[in-house]
């Protein structure tokens, strides 16, 4: 702690007081040391595909029912989705239960533009379709956000839930989006090394590295936003929206941005997912998926980036790790239990540790005086 009783303490660079513990120790390190540690973590992350080679615990960590690089890739887009949902739920305090919708929009945009099955017959390369997919996702975020932002929190939740369901219904029942037949032949990201394409079908490792790189960029972006007037506005809105507005915060604008950014990140996950799988159909984008991501955010600790990463990774890693193992009672692959398990996890976390595994420096999801929100009653 830097407080003294004589001179006013110089607030730390970011204007807040560091807690004790690991986070405090970390924040007190000189800037160079902090960056060195982060760099080290990043490098270790890139080396994750080789974790299986660690003697002893290596084979315990890696997944058996699914190849390890694919599991890592799964984790990477789950982490991305958790980061995106964290912006909406954790930073801005808007409970979006239909987050998978943006993921779907991103994936379907890519599929529509690139797949030979698509009625558009455009057959673009993957890379060309990515900006379009991202733009469409953002627009979807704005379309969902604009009518819902004046709603009270619980209504917002159910409307976003309905939104995701609508997307799923549209995907399942319209011919354009080809329901569960889906789009095949979605091309992979470009690039070749030594004559063979980098992003092939056999090894998911390059996809994981791509995902990891995207994650790092997203982390930097979100962090920049958090430590700026944008993050302050979000926090103010979360803590007391009416007071924030009275203090001059443009609440609608910042809530919309939260939605748009969340949608963008969701779309990022979607375009990568499409590029890796090569196939997009409606089976993936079920409501339970949205809730699973929410479980990750809540479990990890909403409102902070580290928590979102941890939570996202866990909700992907644990089911994948359980793949291939059958339970004795119902003879179902344990992977099929994942929604049930995390449903219970949500309840347990909310009762015993609502701040999540890695608590935000601020108590997240702080909502005061909900009656004062622009609510249907008024």
């Amino acid at each position: 702690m830097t407080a003294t009783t004589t001179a006013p303490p110089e607030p730390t660079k970011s204007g807040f007081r560091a807690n004790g513990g690991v986070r405090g120790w970390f924040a007190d390190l000189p800037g160079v040391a902090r960056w060195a540690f982060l760099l080290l973590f990043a490098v270790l992350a890139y080396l994750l595909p080789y974790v299986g080679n660690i003697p002893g615990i290596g084979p315990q960590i890696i997944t058996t029912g699914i190849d390890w690089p694919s599991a890592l890739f799964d984790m990477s887009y789950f982490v991305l989705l958790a980061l995106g949902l964290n912006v909406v739920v954790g930073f801005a305090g808007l409970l979006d239960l239909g987050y998978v919708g943006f993921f779907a929009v991103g994936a379907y945009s890519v599929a529509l533009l690139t797949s030979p099955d698509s009625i558009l017959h455009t057959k673009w390369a993957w890379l060309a379709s990515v900006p379009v997919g991202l733009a469409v996702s953002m627009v979807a975020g704005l379309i969902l956000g604009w009518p819902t932002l004046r709603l009270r929190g619980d209504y917002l939740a159910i409307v976003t839930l309905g939104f995701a369901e609508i997307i799923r219904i549209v995907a399942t029942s319209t011919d354009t989006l080809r329901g569960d037949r889906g789009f095949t032949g979605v091309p992979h990201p470009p690039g070749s090394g030594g004559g063979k394409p980098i992003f092939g079908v056999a090894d998911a490792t390059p996809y994981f590295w791509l995902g990891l790189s995207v994650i790092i960029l997203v982390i930097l972006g979100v962090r920049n936003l958090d430590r700026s007037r944008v993050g302050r506005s979000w926090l103010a809105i979360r803590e007391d929206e009416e007071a924030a507005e009275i203090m001059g915060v443009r609440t609608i604008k910042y809530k919309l941005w939260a939605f748009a950014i969340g949608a963008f990140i969701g779309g990022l996950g979607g375009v990568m997912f499409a590029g890796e799988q090569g196939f997009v159909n409606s089976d993936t984008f079920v409501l339970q998926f949205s809730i699973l991501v929410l479980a990750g955010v809540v479990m990890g600790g909403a409102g902070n980036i580290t928590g979102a990463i941890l939570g996202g990774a866990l909700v992907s890693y644990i089911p994948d790790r359980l793949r291939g193992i059958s339970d004795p009672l119902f003879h179902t692959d344990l992977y099929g239990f994942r929604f049930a398990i995390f449903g219970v996890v949500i309840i347990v976390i909310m009762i015993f540790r609502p701040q999540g595994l890695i608590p935000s420096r601020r108590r997240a999801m702080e909502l005061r005086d909900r009656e004062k929100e622009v609510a249907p009653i008024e």
Partner: protein
Amino acid sequence: MSEPHIETPQELDDSDARPVDRAAPTGGGRPPAEPSGAADGDLLLEVDHVTLRFGGVVALNDVSFNLRRGEIFGLIGPNGAGKTTCFNAMTGVYQPTSGAIRFNGRSLVGRKKHEITRGGIARTFQNVRLFPEMTALENVMVGVDAHHKTSVVGALLRLPRHWREERTGRERSMELLRFVGISRRAGEVSRNLSYGEQRRLEIARALATNPTLLCLDEPAAGFNPAEKEDLLQLIRRIRDTGVTILLIEHDMRLVMGVTDRIVVLEFGRKIAEGTPAQVRDDEKVIAAYLGVPTDAA
């Protein structure tokens, strides 16, 4: 509670002589310019035959009065008189059922809350509404942000304006914390501040939005006499920087001691208006507060 190093207005008064501009270097915009040639004494806020009904209840009944620039104006009355309702109407939180409220000549009706703040009216709350998990400094910075121009993209990409505005914002916020006397607690999470510190923080935050008119809703509630005296000094110092002040207060000594003019409400109507001396001796006011003896019809 008294801070040994309360700064004097001279510290803030580094540049211009024009009263309102004194709230200087935020590196961003300032409140919209008053009509040129404006000076102390001009009409700042007009309450024009305002009636406000909530369903069947008439909270305000044909109330009219004006605020002049540069004065400290008190709004008093017994409980249930409609002071808070009037206050809320004047700050744009409620819309009048009939009548008009004009600030700088322009109507406040239908304006969004943040527009009103940007237009130059700031307020504090009866039940302190700080952002509890933010530090004192951050609370004030939210107010300073109101006039900043950094866009979301600018913040994302860390453009130069972001750095500039963050720096000036922090400086300005620390200035304001010193001005109200809690700079020592800048890094403390606001819910940990003492009650008196929280109240002063709220004032600092409101001042951060560069208001022309500062509205204080029962700023002395819960204060002991020494704290009230400090508050009185602070209010005077705020006025000296060129901010007009509207005050709701129950404490008569504070109101009589600091205000230039007072309006008294009872049951939603204005029953008296004038200087503290005039109001204090007004029969209707005395009757409103103390009641009428039963033998007087």
